[in-house]
């Protein structure tokens, strides 16, 4: 049974993992929302008004008030719709741990993943893959500790870190496919392999996780457009 709150909008774009974080969180809380998609290459008035500082998606607009920055949005959703399943863990130390890994994934690991796509020659690609692998080894360990034998970082149910990290799985699969590399591997990261499958199959995720083929198309268009230019959109 969906909660129809007075006014919930998400400004975003379907390929963006950061936008996905907001949508998964709203889905988890069974909150209905209007998804307003930005056009590639231009920014709407609403976006520029709602996020004048960064001019980026996602933006959550709740009762006409904008909230920006994907992880800030996730915490906001958790706090406002407090009666739904909890996204952040309840104990302060577990919350700090989840926040730590979410920051790591966003600030260090995801850029290294993009580095594989950006690498021009074999040497650079190899080095980029190694970096991503190192990160995945750390995340595999974090998963073992956090899940305590359950399916998700959050335990029985998906939580903050599942959302913060899982949103990148679409792009991870694209990069694997387009570069002929295997990043999530049964021999190296068995926990994460299991986790990835379960995460993508979750009801709150499956309708917002883009298909690998569709994302691959976008990747190719982006690569053509941005060859030699600035970083890909967040």
């Amino acid at each position, binding site marked *: 049974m969906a909660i129809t709150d007075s006014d919930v909008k998400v400004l975003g774009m379907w390929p963006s993992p950061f936008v996905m974080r907001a949508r998964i969180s709203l889905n988890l809380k069974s909150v209905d929302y209007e998804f307003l998609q930005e056009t590639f290459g231009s920014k709407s008035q609403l976006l520029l008004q709602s996020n004048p500082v960064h001019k980026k998606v996602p933006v959550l607009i709740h009762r006409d008030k904008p909230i920006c*920055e994907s992880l800030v949005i996730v915490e906001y959703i958790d706090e406002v719709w407090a009666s739904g399943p909890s996204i952040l863990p309840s104990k302060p130390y577990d919350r700090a741990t989840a926040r730590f890994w979410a920051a790591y994934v966003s600030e260090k690991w995801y850029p290294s993943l993009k580095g594989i796509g950006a690498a021009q020659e074999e040497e650079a690609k190899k080095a980029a893959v190694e970096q991503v692998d190192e990160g995945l080894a750390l995340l595999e360990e974090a998963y073992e500790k956090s899940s305590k034998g359950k399916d998700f970082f959050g335990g029985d149910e998906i939580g903050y870190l599942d959302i913060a990290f899982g949103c990148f799985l679409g792009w991870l699969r694209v990069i694997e496919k387009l570069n002929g590399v295997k990043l999530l591997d049964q021999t190296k990261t068995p926990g994460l392999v299991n986790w990835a499958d379960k995460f993508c199959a979750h009801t709150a995720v499956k309708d917002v996780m883009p298909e690998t083929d569709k994302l691959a198309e976008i990747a190719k268009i982006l690569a053509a457009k941005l060859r030699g230019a600035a970083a890909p959109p967040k």
Partner: protein
Amino acid sequence: MADQVVLLDFWPSPFGMRVRIALAEKGVQYEYKEEDLRNKSPLLLQSNPVHKKIPVLIHNGKAVSESLIAVQYIDEVWKDKAPLLPSDPHLRAQARFWADYVDTKMYEIGRKVWTTKGEEQDVAKKEFLECISVLEGELGDKPYFGGKTFGFVDMALIPFYTWFSVYEKFGNFSVEAEHPKFIAWAKRCLEKESVSKSIPDRQKVYDFVLEMRKKLGVE
């Protein structure tokens, strides 16, 4: 049950200062351990194996890394006193947004201001002053970013004020000249004991940087 709280830190670090201020706001007793960043202690390397950076807060043996994460942890554990974040979810989101803005801008741009020269430095100075402008806009007429009381964003930002002498002297500009309101906010924060006893004197920071530059042969 006595809490055992240790802070691994480096006195000029603005990130470390945030945690010191948070602990002082909550009246938490802790052991301060100064790290030599060229010779990091086994405890630091053990406690923050991923980044190997300070500050690290160790509470009853459990390590929390990343300054704003540690500040939120402190707020949640010692929740009965001096709330660092507002209770309203929208205001909390605003506070987190602006703290993130400070995190992604101040350190990097500030660093470029005092470590670069010529055109690169000019660009950095412009960006820095824009950043201060944006923050001043957010502050508005409020005494603190947190409103009537000192809060999360104030705590995230005030440590960088200790580095202003560094930015201004090496960048050859004055923040006060362009943004007196911002400086007034900074001085207001310094009137709080939790802030003034947690952060070093600006001159001390400047002298430290001067010495570091000499050692590195930069000039």
